[in-house]
């Protein structure tokens, strides 16, 4: 009994980490963008860009690391397009972000339909060419992300770059007066967010599974955004929020269709009610019931230099 209980806990823990991994990458990415004052609803699309490109590059080049790098590069390119739209042209950040999300559902399908004659998915990657796993099937991507969190924390709070980035998001006029280029910092921050979110996407298609399927992120970009809000735009709490969301997903997966998972009345446990916990929690926190969630002051406001 106790031994099987131990294994059940271990199983759930590992599943939590696996499911949280893409969320953590995306949330850290979103952190850079939003801390600089640019809303990033496009996280979902950036993840998809990374997932698709990594799957194709891994399949063609037979190397998951080249795949990962290609995915991250694709994330940077798409993020740059988004940055030009919202920074140069001051497009509405939410609308432009949604456009990127929809573009990244259609464009990969269009390309893979033309190249592989299958718009629903890319070809299967060999097991040996996927991102490798260590310790009980934990992907290298999961291990790396736990190193990434303290790195992001350090960059954000202990380096001049991080200080300026936060200043740009809080008080762009003052940052500008102190000689910091608001526009340049926002471009950099959005591109970093693209690279990181794409890394999360790449893990989905080359680590967790072995191919890219249409819209495979299935809302994870938005969950990462929710984690960011819950964490009040801070890296360590963001990690915890993502782990919590990964845990709810792990529970949902474990319960779904399992013969032992029955209510006392003998009916199925409705997993839908567990699945919506992250969303409900976000609404509650946003409404200020659990401490005030304060966004970076200049979030969502295009910067116009006074001349």
């Amino acid at each position, binding site marked *: 009994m106790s031994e099987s209980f131990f294994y059940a806990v271990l199983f759930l823990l590992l599943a939590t980490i696996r499911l949280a991994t893409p969320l953590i990458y995306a949330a850290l990415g979103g952190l850079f963008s939003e801390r600089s004052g640019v*809303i990033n*609803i496009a996280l979902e699309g950036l993840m998809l860009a990374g997932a698709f490109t990594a799957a194709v590059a891994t399949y063609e080049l037979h190397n998951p690391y080249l795949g990962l790098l290609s995915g991250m590069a694709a994330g940077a390119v798409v993020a740059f*397009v988004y940055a030009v*739209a919202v920074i140069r*042209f*001051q*497009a*509405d950040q*939410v*609308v*432009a972000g*949604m*456009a*990127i999300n*929809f*573009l990244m*559902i*259609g*464009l990969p*399908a*269009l*390309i893979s*339909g*033309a190249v592989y004659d299958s*718009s629903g998915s890319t070809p299967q990657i060999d097991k040996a060419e996927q991102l490798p796993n260590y310790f009980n099937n934990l992907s290298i991507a999961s291990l790396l992300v736990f190193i990434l969190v303290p790195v992001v924390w350090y960059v954000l709070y202990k380096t001049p770059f991080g200080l300026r980035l936060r200043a740009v998001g809080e008080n762009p006029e003052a940052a500008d007066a102190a000689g910091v280029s608001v526009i340049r910092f926002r471009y950099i921050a959005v591109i970093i967010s693209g690279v990181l979110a794409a890394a999360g996407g790449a893990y989905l298609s080359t680590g967790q599974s072995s191919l890219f399927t249409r819209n495979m992120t299935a*809302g994870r970009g*938005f969950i990462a*955004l*929710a984690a960011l*809000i819950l964490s009040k735009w801070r890296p360590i709490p963001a990690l915890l929020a993502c782990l919590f969301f990964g845990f709810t997903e792990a529970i949902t997966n474990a319960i779904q269709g399992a013969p032992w998972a029955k209510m006392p009345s003998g*009916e*199925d446990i*409705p997993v*839908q*009610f567990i*699945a*919506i916990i992250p*969303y*409900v929690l*976000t*609404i509650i926190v*946003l*409404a*200020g019931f659990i401490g005030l*969630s*304060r*966004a970076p002051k200049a*979030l*969502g*406001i295009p910067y116009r230099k006074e001349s």
Partner: protein
Amino acid sequence: MNILREILWPLVAVLAAFVVGGFVILLIGDNPVTAFGLLLGNSFGSPKDIGWTLFYATPLIFTGLSVMVAFRCGLLNIGAEGQLYVGAFAAAWVGIKFGGTVVNVFGKDENWSWMSLPAVVLLPMCILAAIVAGGIWGGIPGYLRAKFGSHEVINTIMLNFIAIALVGYFTQYYYKVPGDAIMQTAEIGKAAWIPQLNQFLPFLPKDVPLSLAFPLALLMCFLVWVFLWKTKWGYELRAVGQNASAAEYGGIDPKKQIVIAMTISGSLAGMVAISEVLGNRHNYYHDFSADWGFWGIAVALLGRNHPLGVIIASIFFAVLMRGQIFVDAFTPHVSKDVGQVLLSIIILFVACLQMYSTRRRMVKGTV
């Protein structure tokens, strides 16, 4: 002059999107001219084509109006998708409970309905259910915004996921015919079916599901126009959208207007049920929406937040959504995703070119 500017920039965005899309098609290895011909050239050639195009346009008119009303109050409703799901389920629920639905469960007939009402009563009840349910689902983020200042964009995104999960739950556990492999409810009573136009128009083929929902959508455009521009309430709503603090100074309560705008917005999104549940499928089918809630944002934006613009933009989007099927079938490489790609690029360009046309300020808040 002003009107010209309003029309000019959306057109520039569409043309630019087609240029970019043309290059993408060229890179893929097909002829852009052929592809665009297939995309645009199959929509108005026959009564059948026109019927299908208008059928595709109907839900977009509802969601476009929905997003538009919120826009006019300075709010961005990303939640039309969730609101239309809730509305559709509510309409189906009333159609089952009051429509005399009898379900065949493993060879045995089971009565799932409380009563069987005539169409004159049932049809308005179903429509009202969709309006109320959608309105509540839109009103929640409106209330949260007014009361706590939490931003409607995040809340509506979250409520979309919640709506789809909850409606899925009720479908799966309570209203699905046992043994049915598809996630859909039992069929609604015949009295709740809104008549299809092919019953009145002999030249319209029987397989075109265009229903009375389409003229109803046009009527809603007119009503929304009257409401926004010809009534005191509409004036107050728009005043908040233009300048919330000035409106407040003028004696208008912005918080009240925000709740009203989001509730109306949700109701309009819920009305998609009229076209899809009462007019076409005659049940609630999970995943029935082709992301209409999201395309509604694009329709409102491209239609310059005016009911007439919404109608034109909806029909244009419908042309692309139906035309992509022909591109898929008759070109060697381009798949039907070309429509989605073009639509996405159009939104991106419209959003970018917004700075050159009239700028509409949004109410500030935390995202």
